[in-house]
């Protein structure tokens, strides 16, 4: 395990130290050291946007704090939900009087901590609403869609809600748009290798050489199929065969596509996969509006990729095109 760390139990603290030092021009740490806040947060009347989750997914979650994106993020231990207090403090930091939207992923720990955080926030009279991302198709059948986990589709939800909040929409409208975005979003992942949490020191799952795990979760949650490794061409088809019929996404539809490496898969290969996805979407008659490719939502040094499709309409397309600036995602104004 060759890592760039100090004390394995303090990797999150040490990361935050470096992160806040590096980006002190655009963000700061709250009194609670596990809460990162955009310098643009809490503008009077503007809806505040909050998320949070376990660490090890960088640039998620803290990398999406920025202008036109999130206002505050609660930071957990590696692969473990932030505390209720951290979610609460993020909500307080994001609040500018217009209410706060907590937009997070569907994991047991996050659900529970957000619930308790809201209870605490409501005691102090804050108005808080939530949207829970459940874009990971492979994590539960469509009949149990509310059980699905949230993965990289969250980024698109933050982007669209961030643009809506930036242009002054109220809490109800921001929540509607975030919910609509995630309802129109589908993701699936393929794992090619495991990863090691430094404090644990060994992988808690394995993917044998020459095999791949279709539908794997962001923490190594078991997928729906372990099979011999396929070509990028076949991976793209396999992933779209899972995603397209689920919403469904049909001929004539337009989608945003997000490809994320899980950590160790080179950017080169992410673009190879994107090429194959666009080949297949062309063949299906599905238009691609705005592709995002990169290590956008990772799992430490896991090898593998996730693919996310968001079915667009006019209002979502406009919001996706609005400018934003953050460590993880920047959309230029002039595009």
């Amino acid at each position, binding site marked *: 395990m060759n890592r760039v760390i100090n004390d394995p139990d303090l990797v999150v603290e040490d990361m935050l130290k470096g992160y806040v030092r590096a980006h002190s021009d655009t963000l700061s740490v709250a009194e609670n050291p596990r809460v990162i806040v955009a310098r643009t947060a809490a503008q009077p009347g503007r809806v505040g946007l909050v998320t949070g989750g376990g660490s090890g997914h960088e640039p998620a979650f803290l990398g999406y704090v920025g202008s036109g994106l999130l206002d505050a993020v609660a930071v957990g231990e590696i692969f473990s*939900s932030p*505390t209720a*207090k951290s979610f*609460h403090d993020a909500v307080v930091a994001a609040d500018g009087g217009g209410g706060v939207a907590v937009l997070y992923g569907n994991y047991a*720990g996050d659900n*529970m901590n957000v619930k*308790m955080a809201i209870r605490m926030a409501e005691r102090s009279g804050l108005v808080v609403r939530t949207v829970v991302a459940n874009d990971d198709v492979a994590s539960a059948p469509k009949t149990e869609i509310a059980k699905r986990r949230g993965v990289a589709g969250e980024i698109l939800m933050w982007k669209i809600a961030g643009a809506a909040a930036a242009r002054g929409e109220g809490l109800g409208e921001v929540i509607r748009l975030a919910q609509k975005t995630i309802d129109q979003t589908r993701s699936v992942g393929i794992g090619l290798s495991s990863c090691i949490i430094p404090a644990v020191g060994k992988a*808690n799952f394995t993917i044998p050489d020459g095999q791949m795990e279709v539908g794997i979760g962001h923490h190594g949650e078991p997928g729906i199929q372990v099979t011999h490794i396929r070509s990028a061409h076949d991976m793209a088809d396999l992933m779209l065969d899972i995603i397209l019929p689920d919403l469904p996404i049909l001929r004539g539809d337009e989608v945003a596509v997000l490809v994320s490496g899980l950590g160790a898969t080179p950017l080169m290969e992410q673009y190879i996969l994107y090429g194959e996805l666009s080949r297949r979407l062309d063949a299906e008659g599905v238009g691609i509006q705005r592709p995002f490719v990169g290590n956008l939502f990772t799992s430490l040094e896991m090898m593998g990729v996730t693919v996310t499709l968001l079915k667009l309409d006019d209002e979502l397309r406009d919001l996706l095109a609005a400018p934003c600036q953050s460590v993880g995602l920047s959309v230029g104004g002039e595009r």
Partner: protein
Amino acid sequence: MSQVQNQSLPMRGAAYIVENLIDMMALQRAYLSEIDGAIGDGDHGINMSKGFSQARTRMAGRAQTPDLAAALDDLAMTLLEGIGGSMGPLYGGFFLAMSEALSTQGELNAKNFGAALSSGVDAVQDVGSAQVGDKTLIDTLIPARDAYHAALEAGQPFAAALDEMVAAAKQGQESTRMLQARLGRASRLGERSIGVLDAGATSCYFILESLAQSVKQGLTAQ
């Protein structure tokens, strides 16, 4: 042994009940992690004792010794602040609800303890949505709560009702051995989760047992 058995104890001076919980959790640290190791990630004892021991610092930081409701609030807030994952909000919610239920009370008696217990159990279910049979701490909590209230309705005194509660909690904890986990980390194992105790149900038994002991001690001591 020959002391008078009271039916209530004053909230002031009852912070020791929380202190006993903290001491107990430190003692059970290794055992709880060992149980969690069988079908979970082996950190339940670490999570719990980390959170509980921090509560001592919070209580010590107060200008004066807290009453029971305030001590429970300290414990709840510490858990909500110090443990992420699921134990922070579940036990944090449990103790927070108990604290709120008791905050207006001058003394702890069979009735308001019962109300606080029910309110705590409701909070755990509200936060975690677990049902009996899911192999979680709910398997300890629900039968314990029900046994306590049944005893009260049957006219039993406070201390006896607490004994009924602990006995039912023990049965509930033991019942998790033959259950298949449907929530939390262990649920990923499917049938392989059958045959071992649930860590949360076990820590919950210890908590109820410690609460009962401490209350009974207070009822007797006066």
